[in-house]
C-alpha cells in the first residue's frame, strides 16, 4: 500500500464523514482492493484515472440524496392518491343540486352514489349531503307554492266578478301566504346553499 493511496483514501473518508458509514466503507474497500497489489506507479496512474476524491465523494452524496428525494416524492403524493380527484366533489354537488333537473331522477341518483362512494367525506357529511339533496324538492315546492295560490285566486276572481276581466299585463297579486312564504323560502334556501358550501370545504380540508 502506497502513501499516496493512504492519503487519497483518508481524504475521501473525511469528505464522506456525513455519509452512511456502511456505504462509505464499501466504497473505500472497493478502491483499496483494486490498488492493494499494484506498484506505486501503477497505483498513482489508477488514482489519476479515478479523479479527485472530492468528485468521487460528490458522486456518492448526490446519488444518495437523489434517491432519497425520489423516494420522498411518491410519499408526498399519497394523500391525493388516497382521496378523490379535484373535480369529484364539484361534480357530485352539481348532480345533487341540479342533476335531477337536467337528467330527471338519474342525475340525482348518480349524485347520491358519488356522494356515498366518496373517500373525501365522512359518514356525517354523507348523511348531511343526502338530507340537503332531499331538501332540493322541498325548495322547488316552496318556490312554486305562491304561484299555485295566485292562480287559484285569479280563477276565483274571474268566476266571481263576471263582468270585469283582469288585465293580462298586470301580474296577479298574491295576498296572505306571500310574506310567510318569502321568509321561509329565503331561510331554507340560505341554509341549503350554506350546507353545500360546508360540504365542499369539508372535502377540500380532508384532501
Amino acid at each position, binding site marked *: 500500500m502506497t502513501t499516496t493511496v493512504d492519503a487519497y483514501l483518508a481524504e475521501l473518508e473525511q469528505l464522506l464523514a456525513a455519509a452512511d458509514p456502511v456505504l462509505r466503507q464499501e466504497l473505500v474497500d*472497493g478502491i483499496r482492493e483494486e490498488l492493494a497489489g*499494484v506498484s506505486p506507479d501503477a497505483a498513482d496512474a489508477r488514482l489519476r484515472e479515478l479523479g479527485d476524491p472530492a468528485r*468521487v465523494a460528490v*458522486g*456518492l452524496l448526490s446519488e444518495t440524496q437523489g434517491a432519497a428525494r425520489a423516494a420522498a416524492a411518491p410519499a408526498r403524493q399519497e394523500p391525493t392518491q388516497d382521496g378523490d380527484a379535484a373535480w369529484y366533489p364539484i361534480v357530485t354537488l352539481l348532480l345533487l343540486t341540479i342533476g335531477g333537473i337536467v337528467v330527471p331522477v338519474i342525475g340525482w341518483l348518480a349524485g347520491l352514489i358519488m356522494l356515498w362512494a366518496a373517500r373525501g367525506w365522512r359518514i356525517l357529511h354523507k348523511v348531511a349531503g343526502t338530507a340537503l339533496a332531499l331538501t332540493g324538492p322541498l325548495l322547488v315546492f316552496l318556490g312554486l307554492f305562491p304561484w299555485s295560490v295566485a292562480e287559484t285566486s285569479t280563477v276565483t276572481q274571474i268566476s266571481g266578478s263576471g263582468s270585469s276581466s283582469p288585465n293580462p299585463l298586470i301580474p296577479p297579486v298574491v295576498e296572505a301566504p306571500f310574506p310567510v312564504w318569502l321568509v321561509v323560502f329565503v331561510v331554507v334556501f340560505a341554509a341549503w346553499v350554506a350546507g353545500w358550501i360546508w360540504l365542499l370545504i369539508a372535502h377540500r380540508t380532508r384532501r
Partner: protein
Amino acid sequence: MTARSEHATQLRRGVVEACILGLLAREPMYGWQLADKLISGGEIIASIGTLYPVLTRLRERGEVSSFHAPSESGPPRRYYELTAAGRQSLQAFRDDWGAFTASVTDFITPEETP
C-alpha cells in the same frame, strides 16, 4: 470531463440500475470493474462514488448479492452478482425499453417536409 446537461444526467440516472443488472447478468464483477465499464462505456456514472449507492439499493431490493473471492494480486475482492429477482427485473426492463425508445424516437424525430 465536461459538465453534463440536465437531461443527460436524468437519462443516465434512469438507466443506471438496468445497466448494472445487464453487466452482472454476463458475469459477477467487483466494484472497480463495474465502475470502469460504466464510465468508459458511455459515462453512465460520473465516478465510482455514484456506483455504491446504486449497488446498495439493488442489494436492498434483493436484485443483487455480494460475495468475497480471492484476488490474484491483493486481498479478497467483493464481487457482485445477479439474483433471480435481479434477472426478473432486468427482463422487465428489457421488455419496456424497446417500446419506450421507439416511442421517444417517434416523438423527437423531426417531421419530413413534403
